[in-house]
């Protein structure tokens, strides 16, 4: 089973985690056009490659970010929000 490294709890089997989806910057609701907003809500950068994703370590309730190659399923690094590179 895949291993994922929680920045707080260390390497754990992926079954201890919940996938939080791609990390996305929210456009300013005040200035974004309807089309831009709908694009933010629905569309995804679905190309294979290294992506920034939310992951959640269930037993400890820890959210963190993972930079994962979604084709090779290799995690390059994980860190807590705001503590990244």
């Amino acid at each position: 089973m895949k291993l994922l490294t929680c920045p707080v709890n260390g390497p754990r089997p992926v079954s201890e985690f919940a996938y939080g989806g791609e990390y996305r910057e929210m456009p300013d609701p005040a200035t974004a056009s309807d089309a831009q907003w709908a694009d933010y809500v629905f569309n995804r950068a679905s190309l294979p490659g290294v992506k920034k994703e939310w992951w959640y370590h269930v037993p400890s309730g820890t959210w963190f970010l993972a930079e994962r190659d979604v084709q090779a399923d290799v995690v390059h690094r994980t860190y807590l929000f705001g503590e990244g590179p």
Partner: protein
Amino acid sequence: MPVRLFRIGLSSAYPEPRMFRQPEQLRGAYDVVIIGAGGHGLASAYYLARDHGITDVAVLEKGYIGGGNTGRNTTIIRSNYLTPEGVAFYDESVRLWQDLSQDFDLNLFYSTRGHFTLAHTDAAVRTMRWRAEVNKHLGVESELVGPEAVKKACPQIDITCGGHAPVMGALFHKPGAIARHDAVAWGYGRGADQRGVEIHQQTEVLGIDLNHGRVAGVRTSRGSIATSKVLCAVAGSTPRLLDMVGIRTPITIHPLQAMVTEPMKPWLDPIIVSGSLHVYVSQSARGELVMGASLDPYELHSTRSTLDFAEGLANHMLDLFPFLSAAKANRQWAGMADMTPDFAPIMGKTPVEGFYLDAGWGTWGFKATPVCGKTMSHTVASDEDHPLIRGFNLERFANYELTGEKGAAAVGH
């Protein structure tokens, strides 16, 4: 003993011709280029040639015919969907399926077995009734039945599911069927080939040339092609192709895994699906139990297998059929499913003129193969979305008009 087999048995030389040619090289231009020689791409080519007289068509395939999800799915065919758009669309598909073996003169083993979607909670029972009512209204044979009906059709089932998820009812869909998945691609391929379509295997698309926002050509690993119409039917590779023409969609790629047992004497007649147990299973004519579950939980562009999938599936299989403890799982595999937020496909014209999309097939693409061929060939030929697919257009997201099949397809099959 059927005549055909006699002829083969008695002829000195094996009489069977090639099913499809292997064209030496790509030509410089085609009227239509179809990317992806899976069921959908080949079906589109077949109906373009047969129904629309468009035969100057190249089907480009990175790997080999039917090597993608066409050859990796669990072959379930049904039309018991939730939305009127969905039901009408898949019902037409089921209708087409019935004739394919004769159309192709190739036996697809299209086998109507009946399809039970089990409900283990009262919420599920409600959804099943909803689907049944919509189906009946649109003339599709579906009904909500009680546990006893399930037990009657499948006496071997443990209706209490090991005590922790008793079956409270089921949606019974009489036309539910299975077929030989590979043969579907071969049949469409042969039919298209006989009508002049060129199928180019081992030919990867490297880029799509646009000219003022419309399709001008396709660059491949075997040279460039000029064309004004490109149909994209590549399931798990859709994001790469869309990137070539700069279209953004909600599609994300998740693996869908499956598993098959060693052959055993056939005993399971209907197709059994359990949403809350995440199991669907049918028995092939070879005697193998073909089993699947829900999508992998996170995005992945790969067809790797996982052990926890096999463990979970086996556990729930034994909840339903405890006597299979000694049955052996023989092989695991996976496909790449191109998922959409509303569990409905994305089909038809796109912002790029001459670029037609047949995608978002998630876990339900196989059953739609014939109707996709029908509707996409119409759309490509007439440059007008076929009426049956208007609910599936790409704009529906920007317009906040999702189709809401989620209820019906919560478990992949």
